[in-house]
């Protein structure tokens, strides 16, 4: 049986697709056969972030409608043999996704894959609902910013009431906080909510902090998930997150400010 992870946030532009691409790659690199599915029908972008946009032939909706088999639609990643991408349809609308259709595809994937990562669209409409409906674990991507935190809390409410696990009275979805675009220097100046603030408001288990980083734009420019940029801070942050999710004990990083020479000379620790 596969473990189904939804990457969600409510708010757009916080880093859901970047995160989906990075953790799917991370899980596959750790030796687990992983599929990553784009649920953003009509506005697909996961293919671009994964660098496979020119290899898309069939998509998620084709498979739901029986126009292509799952094997025809899955794209094998060029960096890692254990990673497959199922792109969203660019031409249909969000109503092409049905609960029954999505359920069937996830069930079929579950036979063969260890992890299934569902990249949710922004908002709380059908695509977002179906992305989280079948999930076992939820990665809630949040920016340290008021509207993002509020929307994350709204998503937490939906995860605990409108998911399959909630409806069938099963053990609830495991929820994890991924705090992205974090700027420790601004936190120190009191200009940005700190990781403790966000955790206190949302009371969520922190899986990791991803610092605001130039490497994220570099990675999406070139179509390689940022986790493959092993020298970058964001890449390392995602590698830590994957390791922690898999049960490794990794101390949190990127929460405190990087000290320059000046800070090292005059700072207290």
């Amino acid at each position: 049986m596969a473990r189904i992870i939804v990457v969600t946030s409510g708010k757009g532009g916080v880093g859901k697709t970047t995160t989906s691409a990075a953790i799917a790659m991370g899980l596959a690199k750790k030796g687990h056969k992983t599929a990553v599915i784009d649920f953003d029908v009509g506005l697909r972008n996961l293919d671009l972030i994964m660098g496979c946009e020119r290899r898309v032939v069939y998509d998620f909706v084709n498979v739901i409608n029986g126009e292509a088999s799952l094997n025809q639609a899955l794209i094998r990643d060029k960096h890692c043999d254990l990673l497959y991408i199922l792109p969203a349809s660019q031409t249909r609308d969000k109503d092409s996704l049905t609960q029954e259709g999505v359920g069937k595809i996830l069930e079929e994937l579950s036979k063969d894959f260890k992890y299934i990562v569902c990249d949710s669209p922004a908002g709380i409409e059908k695509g977002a609902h179906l992305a989280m409906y079948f999930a076992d674990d939820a990665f809630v991507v949040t920016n340290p910013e008021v509207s993002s935190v509020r929307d994350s809390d709204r998503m937490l409410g939906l995860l605990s009431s409108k998911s399959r696990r909630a409806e069938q009275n099963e053990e609830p979805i495991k929820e994890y906080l991924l705090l992205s675009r974090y700027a420790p220097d601004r936190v120190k100046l009191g200009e940005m909510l700190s990781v403790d603030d966000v955790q206190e408001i949302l009371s969520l288990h922190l899986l990791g902090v991803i610092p605001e980083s130039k490497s994220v734009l570099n990675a999406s420019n070139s179509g390689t998930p940022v986790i493959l940029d092993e020298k970058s801070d964001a890449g390392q942050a995602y590698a830590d997150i994957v390791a922690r999710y898999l049960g490794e004990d990794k101390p949190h990083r990127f929460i405190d400010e990087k000290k320059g020479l000046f800070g090292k000379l005059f700072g207290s620790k």
Partner: protein
Amino acid sequence: MSLLDYFRTSKGGSASLAKERLQILVAHERSSRNQPSYLPQLQRELLEVIKKYINVDQEAISFNFEQDDNQETLELNIILPDYQAKNS
């Protein structure tokens, strides 16, 4: 705390304001999340009935829905206009 920190923390930051606003908002939204979906309509209809007999406005009626493990309580509180005000 180093000398550097002293100068830095003295600058005004807006993060504490953000935290305060979010805590209030999130608490409010969470409490209304667990309420039954018929509650707003029940409130509207009750207000109409009460208005037929007593001249009160929306603010005079408050609903409080509480839930614990084995019971749900719906508390309705109506503040009646005081006698003097009615006769003046």
